[in-house]
């Protein structure tokens, strides 16, 4: 629209001021030359606004732990959890799970705490005399728990539980909900910061 305006004005001007026609023609040609490429640039931009929203940036969370629910991946495996191409992906070095956002029945986040010392080291702490092992149990860190309930191609119900570093679960939930995943509990908006 913006491109056509000067030409319309130019032609209108020629009607009212016949003597000015010769002076305006080079201006009109100049504007046409400048405006033509703009016409092609503006078309895709308009198309984008009318169609689907631009894809949001992918959320990637490394060192996520799959606690339970990975059919092909062992429980308590560490890997990368990401939201790519409207699906939730969990990838370890050996295997990958992909869940379409549209198949997610419910997605919820929670907070919990995990001990800093786990596994074989945890068993070793039992041997520490004078209750030293118990003292070490006091050291823990907060984690986010992400629970995803979804259906497979046969309609079978599945569930997966992930442990993420603190405050990493809400962005994943937010993006999945934006992509069509259902959530029984809406994501709480962060409180406004007073500066």
């Amino acid at each position: 629209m913006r491109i056509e305006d000067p030409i319309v004005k130019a032609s209108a001007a020629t009607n009212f001021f016949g003597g000015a026609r010769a002076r305006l023609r080079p201006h009109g040609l100049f504007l046409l030359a400048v405006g033509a490429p703009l016409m092609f640039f503006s078309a895709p931009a308009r198309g984008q606004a009318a169609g689907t929203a631009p894809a949001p940036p992918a959320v990637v969370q490394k060192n996520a732990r799959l606690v339970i629910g990975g059919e092909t991946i062992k429980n308590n495996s560490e890997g990368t959890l990401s939201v790519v191409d409207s699906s939730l992906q969990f990838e370890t070095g050996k295997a990958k799970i992909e869940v379409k956002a549209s198949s997610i029945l419910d997605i919820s986040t929670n907070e919990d705490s995990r001990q800093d010392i786990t596994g074989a080291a945890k068993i070793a702490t039992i041997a520490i005399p004078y209750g030293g092992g118990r003292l070490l149990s006091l050291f823990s860190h907060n984690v986010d728990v992400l629970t995803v309930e979804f259906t497979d191609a046969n309609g079978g119900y599945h569930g997966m539980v992930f442990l993420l570093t603190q405050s990493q679960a809400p962005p994943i939930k937010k993006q999945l909900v934006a992509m069509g995943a259902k959530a029984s509990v809406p994501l709480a908006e962060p409180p406004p910061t007073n500066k």
Partner: protein
Amino acid sequence: MKHHTRGVVSVIFAVVLACALLLMVGPLLGQPGSGDSKSAQKFSASSIQIEPMDPSDVPMPPEFRVAIYEDLIAQIRKTGKFQHVYRSGDKEAASAPDLVTLRTTAQSFKKGSQKEREVVSVAGSSSIILKVHITDHAGRPLVDRDVEGKVRFFGENLRVTYDFSKKVAAIIRETF
């Protein structure tokens, strides 16, 4: 005198030994379930469908609900009693001829605290009690029991679902 002392010691030893044996064997004899389980009727089914847990009015975090379900699937598969273990909503389950259905309903839940448990020992235990209900294809009840899962001393709170599922798997083994 020395001979007399030796006699007393041997008598005391015999009494202590008898008491220890009684303590060990007594609870086993008194267990009502042990005799029942052997005489209980065994059912046969080639496939089972597991429904998600009904939380009822018991507040329970979603990760526990999901962990119960997934642990149940894994433990029941491990029993090897069924050719097919179907998830809830699986379309293929409809064609199974002798399908049994397992439902669980929450009775009580205590999340507990791993930190408390490991520091104090007597506090912070996690526990969950669910009603386990297994019905046959016609809807007749085969199993209707309360099962408790616990984490008393060591382990994460979510391990309570593993303990529960192991117990349900044991029920499956003695029923099918």
